[in-house]
């Protein structure tokens, strides 16, 4: 498990084209029109049993609020090394977060899942707002969220 994590971290954070088997994946997370401030949203990978494997992206810049992204916070233990270089602005109600990352081929169709946790100030925290298995088949198919996320799609390029 540890090894896997390292490989993942490298693949995402460095995104070196030299990785012959890397694949570009575009993640699109569309938020509902909820009433409230910008949402903190995290995309991360787990294995089929829900165990944390690595961070894909954290939308939201204040680390003091990260504990509200509870599933991810547990898995990553909020170790800054886990999300270093993978953060951006929070996502306003009704907007869409688009990110493109290079993922190792071996992560696809291998039982991994993409999970999304989300949280909004003064509103509830949503753990596993989205759970989507990372498969070739699932590419391009929208998955609806159960909290602030209205729909989530990944596209394997």
């Amino acid at each position, binding site marked *: 498990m540890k090894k896997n994590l390292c490989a993942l971290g490298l693949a995402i954070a460095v995104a070196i084209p030299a990785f012959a088997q890397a694949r570009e994946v575009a993640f699109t997370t569309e938020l509902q029109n909820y009433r409230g401030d910008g949402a903190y949203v995290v995309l991360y990978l787990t294995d089929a049993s829900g*165990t944390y494997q690595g961070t894909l992206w954290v939308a939201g810049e204040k*680390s003091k609020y990260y504990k509200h992204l509870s599933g991810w916070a547990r898995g990553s233990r909020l170790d800054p090394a886990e999300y270093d270089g993978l953060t951006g602005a929070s996502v306003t109600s009704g907007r869409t977060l688009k990110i493109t990352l290079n993922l190792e081929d071996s992560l696809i169709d291998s039982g991994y899942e993409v999970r999304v946790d989300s949280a909004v100030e003064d509103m509830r*925290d949503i*753990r596993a707002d989205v759970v989507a298995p990372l498969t070739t088949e699932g590419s391009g198919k929208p998955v609806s969220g159960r909290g602030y996320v209205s729909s989530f799609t990944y596209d394997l390029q």
Partner: protein
Amino acid sequence: MLRKFHRLPGLMAGLFLIVLSVTGAVLALAPTLDRVSAVIPAFGEVSVAELADRVVTHYPGTEQIVREPSGKVIVYYSRDGQAGADLVNPVTGEGIAPYESSAFFGWVKDLHRAFMLDDAGRALAGVLAAFMVLLCISGILLLARRTGGWRNLLRPLSGSGSKRIHAELARFAVLGLLLSALTGSYLSAQRFGFLPEASEIGPTFPAEVSGGQPAPVGTLKALGNVDFGEFRELVFPYPGDSQDVYSLTTRGGSGFVDQATGELLQYQPRSDGSVVQQWIVSLHTGEGLWWLSLILGAAALTVPVLSMTGGIIWWQRRRSSGQLPDNADASQADTLILVGSEGNATWGFARELHSSLNKAGFRVHCSEMNALANQYPQASRLFVLTSTYGDGDAPASAQQFMARLGNFRPGKALTFAVLGFGDRQFPNFCKFAVEVDAALANKGLGRLHGLEKIDRCAAAQFSEWGESISKDIGVPLTLDYNPLPPATVELELVERADYGLAIQAPTSILRFKAAEQGGWTKVFSGNHKTLPSFEAGDLLGVMPPNGQAPRFYSLASSATDGVVEICVRKQPGGLCSGYLHALRLGDRIEGFVRQNPEFRPAKGNLPIILIGAGAGIGPLAGFIRKNTSRNPMYLYWGGRDSRSDFLYQPELGDYLDDLRLTGLNTAFSRSDERAYVQDKLRQDQMALRQMASKGAQFLVCGGRDMAAGVRQVIDDILKPLNTDVESLKKQGRYLEDIY
């Protein structure tokens, strides 16, 4: 300088501060509303395990239970794959209503902290909070200076209109405003990274959990040990994940609970920094402190009024200052006018003197006292017009005068005259003028004219001073200045009662009504309407027929009496009193009301002792007429002859009968007893002393000599009580209306 610190942020931020304060006041209601609707179990009644157990019975998909600072409990759950949130009763675990944060309060909150402009708005709100801190501190300092020291900060305030409202409200609200502003600035500074923030990441997830079969939440030991009162938040483990744990947050800290063994894992007490942080937030928002939030909300509501009255004060000051035409250069001037002014009232007098001297052919240079030059080569006379600030301090435009005087090298020919402005009722009447007068004399300057003191901007006194100055400089001067002539109302004489004719001391009680405006004028004249509200003890300004400065008479009636009543003694050669005495029923005069709120009987049932002589009975009779709650009121009054000038005799009899007046004691100087009111007071000294010791209030109205005599007698009477008139004045228990 201090005033500038108060004025600038006030004017710049006024409108925004109104938005901040009104929204703040609305938000302040939230903690109370939340508290009212919350069900709060007694300490020891419900543990977290019991709470969770009951909630789970009703919400099998419970993910998180949160106890808000108000005591409200919210359960977050998932049902059929959809997330939901309900308010629950902590005792039964039953749902009360779907939970939704209020759209209205959300909107107001956004307006309050960011003007709906996100980060730019948040920055603005932060800057405004800092302005507010500045305003509060400079305001307290100004108030302390105005009342003459910190000890007097809570003393009754003088003044009227905007100034008074501003000071009274500010005194009431300043601590609340300061608390809100300080905490607001602090939070904003943290938000933008200027101050460190004690952030608590919380304990790290336990490396090892038992991983056993999950036990029912109600049986978990660690949850059973926490009372509802200590509880903040419980996050449930992800369903089906045996490696997951409960996350528990309490008032004292946070940790995890093993879902199989119920052990508390990795508990971490809350850091001191985080406790302090939470307090600052609570002090700002009133979260969990509903009573504080109500106080802060009430304080915030004063801000719109403070902003408006502050703006009005500034505008009035601006209007009454302004540039002087034909001001001679300091090096060329033969005559100097130096002005010491706090509120700019003195400048009006200075301008009049300036223009009058200019007309007489002098080259006059006028400036503030702070601008005293080292020498004035051509000058041969120096006029200093100055007010006194607070407890005998220099007013704003004279604060550097004494220091500058050290470098001042006057020419040999320079002579000076000081004119002080103040309010005789204050203990240190014109004290600064006295000091300036002495300092100039010490400097070796010759006196052109001795120090004179003008009481409450009295136009008549100023003209008299001008006449004596005319004699000193050998050039006729007419000083005719009336500070900002007020809007007048036409008053019609409807009733008069004449006394004292037989003894050549004609004194009349005159009753006026606002004159009816006929037809067209009624529709079109905006400024000639009814008088503003007034009470006995306020002053009626009467415009004499030849356009001179108004004369003031104490009002003997209140607006609710339906008439404007004054009591006027005809002064020998008196211009305005002669004019009033010559009025016939139906004749009209021009008048206006000047508030005099300092001269009022105190509320409550402590004895009120009214002392007056001659026409001074006017406002006192008005007080008695108003005494419908039958508080103990005693009148000591002196006239000349009971057969001729016993003013208000029939009315006083009625008041005694219906107990509005408790006791009446009269003295007549031209009767057989030849007594003055002071004599009557002395006769009654035992009773008066006893009433004084119980907290009685004295109100004196009449001529200057009588007032001085009364002060002496009362001082004697108070001596055994180890107090004096001066101390009573400070407590607002000895009031004078003297003419």
